[in-house]
């Protein structure tokens, strides 16, 4: 049985914060296919196009028929754990600090044997389900977890290391003025966050849902205007040392393309929020979080950005908005690499059109704020780097994966 996680004690100011180390980061190019799938929350292995053999470890040619045509595909995730060990000493600086560490050998129903992290509740010998997670270095690792899951199992120390679960963590939600930020704050509070700081820009302006927001347990309202560097810096000065997760829900949406002479000021406002807002957050909070990536139960864990799926391809009716989303996406890729040395994950939650006043004339299906909130909590609890919320986001992602150029023409009809 997983030992339930207790609230972490207050930090001992005399102890040096454990510096973040990363598990081994080197991977072959083929292995990055596993990472790409894990980043999206999938377990996929290479399958040979010619003979159907499932291959593992990742390779460049089939070990049965020598075909070079191997593709990552979802495969049956069941398996039998046939051996286990508990690593108690390691020359690796990361694992050295985290032993004992349980590892198992799993004979997969789909064929190969896999050396995997072994969840504490898996019996040996016994059945398991294989899942792919990103480790602190941002690479895929495989984890054998119990076939039947209960929420309490998320407290397993190896599991927690491979996720960014909000339980007992202190979260900053950047925009409490809008329904998305409010829904995310409520969901994180429910998921066990010990504090949910909620940023409010221009507090002199009342907003819908204010009273309900303030009534959410563990919510603390903080002044935060992402377009104002000094505001972000001041907030970081106040809570930067204890912010474990940031969920950036700020999104400046306006219709308009780029030819219209009237769009530049609005486009600039969109970029100020969507792009430079994210950069200001990263600048004010990033270094501190990176230094606290291994700081115990409530270590700094993740920066989640909620952004429109138009980051992948431009929807001309919302042309400059899409452009800001694309810039945001690119910035997240950079931030992901920059936060990696601290073991802090950067997660993108791509959404379809949100049900709001700016998109009244966008046809359904649209995404409700509660759906986004659920996806944010799932991304954190499961450690998913890229998730897509709503049918449109999933559809755009599939088309993007198939051919970005075709998608461009489709969205540009």
């Amino acid at each position, binding site marked *: 049985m997983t030992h339930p996680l207790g609230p972490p004690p207050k930090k001992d100011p005399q102890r040096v914060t454990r510096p973040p180390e990363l598990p081994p980061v080197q991977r072959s190019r083929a292995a990055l296919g596993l990472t790409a799938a894990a980043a999206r929350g999938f377990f996929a292995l290479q399958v040979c196009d010619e003979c159907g053999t499932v291959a593992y470890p990742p390779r460049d040619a089939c070990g049965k028929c020598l075909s070079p045509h191997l593709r990552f595909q979802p495969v049956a995730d069941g398996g039998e754990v046939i051996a286990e060990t508990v690593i108690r000493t390691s020359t690796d600086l990361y694992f050295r600090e985290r032993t004992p560490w349980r590892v198992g050998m799993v004979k997969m129903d789909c064929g190969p044997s896999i050396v995997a*992290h072994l969840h504490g509740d898996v019996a040996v010998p016994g059945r398991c389900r294989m899942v792919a997670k990103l480790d602190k270095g941002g690479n895929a690792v495989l984890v054998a977890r119990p076939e039947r899951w209960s929420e309490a199992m998320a407290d397993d120390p190896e599991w927690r290391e491979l996720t960014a679960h909000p339980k007992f963590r202190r979260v900053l939600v950047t925009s409490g003025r809008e329904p998305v930020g409010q829904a995310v704050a409520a969901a994180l509070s429910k998921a066990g966050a010990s504090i949910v700081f909620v940023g409010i820009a221009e507090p002199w302006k009342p907003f819908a849902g204010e009273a309900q927001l303030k009534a959410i347990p563990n919510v603390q309202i903080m002044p935060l205007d992402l377009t104002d560097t000094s505001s972000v810096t001041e907030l970081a000065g106040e809570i930067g040392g204890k912010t474990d997760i940031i969920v950036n829900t700020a999104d400046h949406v306006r219709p308009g393309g780029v030819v219209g002479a009237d769009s530049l000021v609005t486009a600039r406002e969109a970029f100020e929020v969507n792009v430079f807002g994210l950069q200001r957050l990263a600048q004010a909070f990033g270094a501190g979080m990176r230094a606290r990536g291994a700081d115990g139960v409530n270590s700094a864990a993740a920066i989640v950005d909620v952004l429109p799926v138009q980051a992948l391809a431009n929807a001309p009716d919302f042309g400059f908005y899409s452009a800001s989303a694309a810039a945001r996406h690119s910035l997240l890729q950079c931030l992901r690499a920059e936060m990696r040395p601290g073991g802090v994950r950067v997660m993108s939650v791509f959404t379809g059109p949100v049900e709001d006043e700016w998109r009244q004339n966008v046809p359904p299906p649209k995404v409700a704020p509660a759906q986004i909130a659920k996806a944010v909590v799932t991304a954190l609890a499961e450690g998913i780097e890229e998730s897509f919320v709503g049918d449109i986001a999933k559809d755009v992602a599939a088309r993007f994966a198939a051919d970005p150029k075709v998608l461009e023409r489709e969205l540009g009809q």
Partner: protein
Amino acid sequence: MAAATTPSRGNPRRPYRDVAVAVPVSIPYVRYSTDTAHAWIARALKELTQRAGIRPTDLDGLSVSSFTLAPDTAVGLTQHLGLSPRWLDNIPMGGASAVVALRRAARAVEAGDASIVACVGGDANEVDSFRKLLSSFSRFAQDASYPYGYGGPNGSFALLTDHYMRTYGATREDFGKICVAQRDNALTYPQAIMQRPLTLDAYMNARPIADPIHLFDCVMPCAGAEAFLVTTADIARDLALKHATLLSTIERHNAFPDDPIQMRGGWAMDVGELYAMAGVKPDDIDVLETYDDYPVIVMMQFEDLGFCGKGEGPDFVRAHDLTNGGSFPQNTSGGQLSAGQAGAAGGYLGLVEALRQVTGQSLSKQVEGARMALVSGFGMINYDRGLCSGAAILRGNGA
């Protein structure tokens, strides 16, 4: 267990004709050293040539195994050491290196491609070099093994030891008996790194490394070198060298890939041929030198080399005294578990020791009447199991 020999497709193996193996050289190991692999190998070759009574330039064949020569290979070493061989080999097979080097060199000597081949394995061990070596070992290990707790070989062998124990009922005491016997043997070998007795209690109570592997299941990485000469029987006689005759060898890589976890090595595929070529039976073997990076693999070799059936390893161990004076002398210089593991030289340790035992040159306690030795090699955990296996049978004139 029946050997699953692959049909030879009408090309039967030819027996070795008068291949002599001579001049067993073991450069004493040290735990840490700032000396490079080049220096260790040079030291071994110097002793090898001096004891053979030849000049280094008389070596017209060279076979090198080392993990720590980078950025050099055997090629760079020729210029570094001033050798001009007409036959050169570089064997990156870890624990299988010596057997494979011997196989290759034997055929070269037979064919006349070379006359006197020096086979050498040697490695440096600086303070941090084991950790660095691990991190660049293999692509599958990098992708699929090290990210899982980074136990290195300890982690991989822990899993297959655990599986073997579950499957065949082996106990830690059984492995302990192997380790204690080898330590007893090492106490008779002045060059062993481990010079203090090991009791079963101490073995059982040692600190856990990766369950069920504990401290005395693991070898001690160190620096050192081992070498021997391969030449014709005629030349060996001309040089008045005590030598053994090579009777047979086998080699196999990535055997039984469909086994879900390693339960047997490649020997099981080829062991029939090993004995048939030598014209001997397991009972005829006087001295066995197994590859012993972990005791479980020793037990598997007892099985796979035909001394007992699959799964009978634990009973076999319980039934025998594995010391040099016992009923089944095994790893007579202490094996790597007690003599130390000097990188690729670890793959040479058993062969060089066997050569000493059957030619009456033993530095450890001489096994009485030892003439027939079986040496096996095992190496290279690429992902979850050792891929290379090999074995050789040598016959000498004894003490």
